[in-house]
């Protein structure tokens, strides 16, 4: 096995390992079989050939029926992994996710549970415009009973997707479309990470950078340069966005006294707001500067590359926020 692996290979590997380890793991989604090319994004390539079309099923274009079938199969003892090709299409299945997957354990008084994983893909930066690019994770974080997971490295992608599949509850696993070919170190076989645990991937003393998914890739490119300037950034990768690992965030911000939160999703009413609220609730006395958020603009994702880049948060926004919080400015 090569010591490098990209995100797409990571997802495929996690699915392959999970299906090999547990015969109750089954998959469904549009175009996911090898006959259809192994998925529009090739994540499921080879799996229907290896495990059969009973367990790896290409579906009609029917998001309600896909998520509904995953829910039903899970109630009957299976561990389904449903692929919703793009996150915007998940809107078609909201009833199944919000009213059923997330709530059946609670509403049944714990008699039933819905151990499904919904894999979906999204992210701006490819001129796919307003219905193929949205980061909608906050909606699902706002829904009790759901778990929301977004990996920032290929190795984490393997470990977190395996964890979602093994988890006893419905997990939404979000894959970044733009960085799908980015490579990183490959993990050991059967690498499984805990859900609900953030990862302090680099310790620092001046400011906590709290994020998930793509912005962490931006931070990793600037953190050494900032360190050379004497700015010591502690990088906290949430990994699981919900349920949120408040303890790790609080510990970090109590140490550094400053926090910058970054996500690709639009700014308002987003995950950043929730993280900032928890920081002020738990770390008020330790804060040396206002908590800042870096996010994309509160508009639909535009098509033209120039406009799309204006919509998206930028790496330079992250750097500016880091510097601003160190200056203690409140003018942002």
């Amino acid at each position, binding site marked *: 096995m090569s010591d490098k692996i990209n995100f797409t290979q990571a997802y495929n590997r996690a699915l392959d390992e999970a299906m090999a380890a547990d015969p109750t793991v089954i998959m469904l989604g549009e175009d996911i079989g090898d006959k259809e090319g192994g998925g529009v994004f090739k994540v499921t390539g080879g799996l229907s050939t290896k495990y059969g079309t009973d367990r790896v099923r290409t579906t009609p274009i029917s998001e309600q029926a896909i998520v*509904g079938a995953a829910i039903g199969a899970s109630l*009957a003892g299976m561990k389904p992994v449903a692929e919703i090709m793009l996150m915007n299409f998940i809107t078609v299945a909201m009833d199944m996710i919000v009213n059923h997957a997330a709530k059946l354990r609670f509403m049944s008084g*714990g008699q039933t549970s819905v151990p499904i994983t919904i894999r979906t893909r999204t992210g701006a930066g490819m001129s796919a415009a307003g219905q193929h690019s949205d980061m909608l994770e906050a909606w699902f974080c706002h829904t009790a009973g759901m778990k929301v997971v977004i990996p920032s490295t290929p190795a984490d992608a393997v470990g977190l997707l395996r964890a979602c599949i093994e988890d006893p509850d419905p997990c939404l696993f979000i894959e970044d479309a733009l960085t799908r070919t980015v490579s990183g170190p490959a993990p050991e076989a059967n690498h499984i990470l805990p859900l609900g645990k953030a990862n302090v991937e680099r310790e620092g003393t001046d400011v906590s950078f709290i994020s998930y998914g793509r912005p962490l890739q931006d931070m990793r490119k600037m953190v050494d340069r900032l360190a050379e300037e004497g700015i010591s950034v502690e990088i906290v990768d949430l990994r699981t966005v919900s349920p949120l690992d408040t303890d790790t965030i609080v510990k970090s911000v109590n140490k550094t006294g400053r926090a910058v939160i970054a996500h690709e999703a639009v700014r308002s009413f987003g995950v950043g707001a929730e993280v900032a609220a928890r920081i002020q609730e738990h770390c008020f006395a330790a804060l040396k500067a206002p908590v800042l958020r870096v996010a994309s603009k509160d508009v639909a994702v535009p098509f033209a590359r120039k406009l799309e880049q204006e919509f998206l948060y930028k790496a330079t926004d992250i750097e500016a926020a880091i510097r601003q919080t160190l200056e203690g400015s409140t003018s942002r």
Partner: protein
Amino acid sequence: MTTSASFTSKDLYEVYKKALKILIVDENIRGLIRSGAMHPVYYSPRGQEIVAAAMGVHLEPTDYLCTIYRGVHDQVAKGMPLDVLLAEYFMKVTGACKGKGGAMHITHPASGVMVTTGVVGSSMPIANGMAWASQIKGDDRVSVATFGDGASNIGAFHEALNMAAVWKLPTIFLCQNNRYQECTQYADSTSCEKISDRAAAYGPNMVGVSVDGNDAEEMWNAMRDAVARARSGAGPTLIEANTFRYMGHYFGDQAPYIPKEELAAEMAKDPMIRIRQQVLDSGVATEDDLVALKAELEAEFEAAVQFAKDSPEPELDEVYKDIYGAA
């Protein structure tokens, strides 16, 4: 249970027993609500008893049921015990869902009541998933999704029936056409003459039948065929069981939208009166038998109510339980 036999007086009696139990449960629940003894959000199935009873007699406890908010007839027909059912209505911790689901979300996996949904149309996609699991495991179970005529107008119906046909799933789509989509008449909401006409859209893998759901023999035959077809791997069936809803959409609904003549005509052919006479005419039971049966079922209901009343309410910490399982 044999599914190929033809309808006998013994089968009629089995349907009647379940239907009478449903009637007693429904009438008593409405009485308890009227008296202020309990406060569930309730949707009476009065008039639809035969449909559910004839379904129930063909199913094993291990078969799966996804029903809807108007579902107490389906749940009782599937074998749901009355004590945990009533305790849930009474908001007690001994209720099937510990008081966290209520009448609209009754769940009891031991009797195969897997989901009761409060969202119109949502029973169907989920039933498919259980049927898919059975297909993979080869466990011979069937999955039944019940829903009303109005639910055949929501997108989930189309998605679910199409998927079931493409995959030849052992799913039975049991549409209880009670002629009113909430407060809207059938013709004002539904384009086709018969719900079963819609089955043709799903090709040869989907069989569609319309029956008088209030007729025990017709309904029993339709379920027998659908269950046999599903168990044999031949695929799904859409059954349109024509029936009528006597009590309005929700409890307390005076149903001014139902023409008086229509209601009177339906009341005059109450299926519970008809089946009772059929049972007596068949000679399978005597008047004394039926009186004794009713007393027995009333006593079972009373015992369940007593259990519910004697049970404690949930502790507040129940709010914080059953959100996630132990990873």
